[in-house]
């Protein structure tokens, strides 16, 4: 028996047709030749004669190339029962079949050239990965820096040496006692809260001991920002009143997911931090990482727990005006501008300077929009980060384009 497919394939090989079109054409022509051969044989021709006649049908294959190239499109498939109509009743079966054939074809091609595939995947992966990373950073820092209601009504409050703005653009921190005075005496903020930087703490468990980051905040921190917990509650006013009395904690949403496996019954559970048992009372909203652009704490605890949580570092932090750990964040009263707030806080700073000259003299208050300090921890002002971010985005965009053109070149070379 003659292998008609092979015969047709050999003739078409020189035409370099697109593989799918060639498969189709080979099948159709080989059937035709086989039909011709069978008919000649049944009409009495010997094998040699029938074979030669059938093969002679294939002269001038160039016409095939011209038309096949023009007609290179996916064939349609139908499955019909014996004697059924040619038009299918379930065209989607054909589509699935086409898709399945495509997948198999792609798999075969990929398997044949694993190194090529690896190089292409790496190139595109690096390009796309770099873009995603940079865009994520830009999105976090510039497009959506602080996921709280009305962030423009928030001001960063702290100190500065008159005539010299801090390099980071963020005010110098306040002592807890000074913060309390500013809270009580100011007439420009609806609420004024304080928070420390994120500090490493050790979480002790029965099985593990792991590093986390904790932040001390005043009890009105979350209400000042205007956010609500996804579960449980935030701190009550009296929870930062008595030092060491209220070992409660609010956890970061991401930490709840990653470290606690999104456990439903986490509220009321105990977490041991630096050998102190804290009761988890709430989970912060998703995407909220504190007043920070990039890096936020895993857990927030009341400022009153400062000495209990950090016995060495924070000794006297709640009473000693010389220990400055707290950044202030205030929600402006309606109708109050940053300049008015600055003026009012300057007056208070001068008062405190007179009252506590040993530690507070020589400082002025500093009130700036909250977005200016979000990036302070990353070591840059928002303008600089915006410029660097935009530059990076352009660079990685070009990298992706180069990767794409490299892949295109590789494909062309093949």
């Amino acid at each position: 028996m003659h292998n008609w497919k092979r015969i047709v394939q050999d003739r078409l090989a020189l035409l370099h047709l697109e593989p799918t079109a060639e498969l189709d054409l080979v099948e159709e022509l080989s059937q035709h030749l086989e039909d011709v051969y069978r008919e000649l044989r049944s009409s009495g021709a010997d094998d040699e004669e029938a074979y030669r006649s059938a093969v002679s049908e294939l002269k001038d294959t160039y016409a095939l190339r011209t038309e096949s190239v023009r007609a290179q499109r996916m064939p349609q498939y139908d499955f019909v029962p014996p004697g059924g109509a040619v038009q299918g009743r379930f065209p989607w079966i054909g589509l699935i079949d086409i898709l399945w054939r495509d997948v198999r074809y792609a798999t075969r091609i990929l398997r044949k050239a694993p190194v090529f595939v690896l190089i292409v995947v790496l190139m595109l992966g690096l390009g796309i990965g770099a873009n995603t990373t940079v865009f994520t950073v830009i999105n976090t820092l510039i497009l959506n820096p602080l996921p709280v209601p009305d962030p423009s009504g928030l001001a960063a409050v702290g100190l500065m040496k008159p005539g010299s703005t801090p390099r980071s653009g963020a005010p110098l921190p306040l002592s807890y006692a000074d913060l309390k005075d500013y809270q009580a005496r100011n007439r420009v903020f609806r609420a004024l809260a304080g928070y420390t930087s994120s500090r490493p703490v050790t979480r002790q468990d029965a099985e593990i001991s792991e590093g986390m980051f904790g932040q001390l905040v005043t009890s009105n921190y979350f209400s000042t920002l205007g956010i609500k917990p996804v579960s449980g509650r935030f701190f009550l006013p009296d929870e930062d009143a008595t030092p060491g009395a209220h070992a409660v904690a609010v956890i970061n949403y991401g930490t709840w997911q990653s470290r606690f496996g999104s456990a439903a019954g986490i509220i009321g559970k105990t977490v041991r931090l630096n050998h102190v048992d804290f009761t988890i009372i709430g989970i912060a909203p998703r995407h909220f990482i504190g007043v920070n652009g990039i890096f936020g704490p895993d857990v927030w605890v009341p400022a009153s727990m400062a000495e209990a949580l950090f016995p060495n570092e924070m000794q006297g932090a709640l009473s000693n005006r010389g220990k400055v750990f707290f950044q202030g964040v205030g929600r402006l009263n309606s109708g109050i501008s940053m300049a008015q707030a600055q003026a009012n806080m300057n007056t208070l700073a001068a008062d405190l300077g007179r009252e506590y000259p040993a530690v507070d003299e020589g400082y002025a208050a500093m009130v700036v929009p909250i977005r200016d300090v979000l990036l302070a921890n990353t070591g840059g002002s928002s303008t600089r980060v915006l410029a660097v971010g935009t530059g990076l985005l352009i660079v990685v965009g070009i990298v992706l384009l180069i990767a794409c053109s490299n892949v295109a070149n590789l494909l062309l070379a093949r």
Partner: protein
Amino acid sequence: MPPTSPEQEWKKGSAELLVLSLLEDQPRHGYDISKLIQIRSGGVLRFHVTSLYPLLYRLEERGWIASRWVEKAEQRRRRYYNLTPEGRKVLRAQRKSWKEFVAAISLVTGVENA
């Protein structure tokens, strides 16, 4: 009417007219079409696969015919071609054109049956 017009149409369309006519009543596969042309023309007209299939693809490309692979039990799958509504219109026009051409030839040559 210039005599070249139907002639040009005839030259271009005679092979197409044959295929479209054979698909008028029912879908057929390539071998069936080529066999019918040969039989019905008494062996005078014959298409090699390298002429027939490019023609079929061209007609399909123009949307005059459509094709589908059909699998029937205990038979090899075959590609069947059928006439599209547009193909049906073209067939009518080509038939008319052909008749005009034959009539013109008859008038000039005095041959009654072209």
